[in-house]
């Protein structure tokens, strides 16, 4: 099989958006998993909780992403047990970065685009990574096949220090744009907010009310 054939067999189409507001971090993603032209799943989970105050969105090879999440959850749990405190979001991002870079240098990079969002004593944070293990802290970011559409919306609509509601409207608008124009994105939305009270997933009703689609 040619590499391109393999790639068509792998679930990888997605759009995810991470966005920083005044008091919270927002992560949203669609729910479609595609394999080439096939919709492999219409209920894929692409926003995963890491601990009480952080979450990660995944795009790309699902198996790689799930493996990274498993390892990160274990590392964070061990950190919290050993030290009786939570790691800062930047520390979690550092762990992810090291994992990606190590794999890249072993000539088999994890085929993923990740966004980490969280809240700690220093406020809300959004971090993005590439497959080679580079790390950057952003106000907003998007990943996956539909990200070019989402980028356009975010570029135009993002403002600093938005409220949770304003931020969610922008993030959902960006995602809806990708759902409309990217065939590998669709089948509903999962949205997560992380603030000083911790990780919280929005209900379907909340998402519709804020302009999202199911």
């Amino acid at each position, binding site marked *: 099989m040619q590499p391109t054939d393999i790639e068509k067999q792998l679930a990888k189409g997605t759009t995810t958006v991470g966005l920083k507001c005044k008091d919270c971090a927002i992560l949203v993603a669609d729910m479609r998993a595609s394999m080439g032209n096939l919709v492999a799943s219409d209920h894929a989970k692409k926003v995963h909780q890491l601990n009480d105050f952080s979450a990660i969105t995944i795009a790309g090879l699902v198996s790689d992403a799930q493996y990274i999440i498993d390892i990160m959850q274990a590392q964070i749990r061990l950190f919290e047990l*050993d*030290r009786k405190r939570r*790691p*800062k979001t*930047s*520390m979690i991002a*550092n*762990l992810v970065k*090291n994992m990606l870079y190590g794999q890249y240098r072993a000539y088999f990079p994890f085929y993923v685009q990740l966004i980490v969002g969280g809240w700690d004593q220093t406020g809300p944070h959004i971090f993005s990574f590439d497959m080679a293990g580079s790390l950057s802290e952003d106000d907003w970011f998007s990943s996956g096949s539909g990200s070019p559409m989402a980028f356009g919306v975010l570029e135009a609509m993002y403002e600093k220090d938005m409220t949770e509601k304003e931020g969610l409207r922008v993030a959902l608008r960006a995602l809806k744009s990708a759902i409309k124009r990217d065939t590998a994105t669709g089948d509903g939305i999962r949205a997560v907010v992380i603030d000083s009270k911790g990780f919280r997933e929005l209900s379907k009703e909340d998402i519709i009310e804020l302009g999202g689609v199911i």
Partner: protein
Amino acid sequence: MFSQPSQFGYDKATVIFSPDGRIIQVEYAREAVKMGSTAVGIKTDQYVVLAGQKRTFELIESADKVFKIDDHIASTFSGYSADGRALLQRARIEAQIERITYGEMIDPEVLSEKIGDYLQSFTQYGGVRPFGIAVLFGSVYEREPSLYFIDPGGAIFSCLATAIGSNEAAAKEILKKGYKKNLAKKAAIKLAIDALKAAIEEDETKLIAEMAIIETRDGLVQVLSQKDIDEILKA
């Protein structure tokens, strides 16, 4: 009943308990600590002071007694100096591993646990001997001063003030009498020097000390020579 542990070879390796539950090799290591030059540590609500006596020998220039582990952590030890340097090198590496892993300075409690775990491994495997040293770590981390004492068996104690090395009991007496939580910088330095003076057997005016002080103000290790200490105490 077990007055002679050596009679049955219970002191030959750390993997063997004596019948009364002791690991005799670790106790021998504690004896080695008592031969080392004295060191003291004091933690107040604003300062951490580590100080040690620099022993001088004829025609030999004295070695360092306090060490910087990272920007915010200082250390001193009593016992075999070669063992001490090997352990401090490990502490420095652990501090940098933390920076690479999490992008943050290491919590001194975490560092102490890592060093404690390492020392412990030398009490449970055959073919090795425990480190012949006791270590103090002083630090200001997130504006909180901390002072940890680790013994050759790997046990960790968080202390307000403590002394290790030769004649440590005499130094501890002085610390017990003079310690207050709200000591000023000069008073804390003086208490450390007084404790060292009480511990040295020779003429106490001959004390040459080295000191590390960390203030909550900036949380950075400053290493002071005897000359620096004299200047502060004179002022």
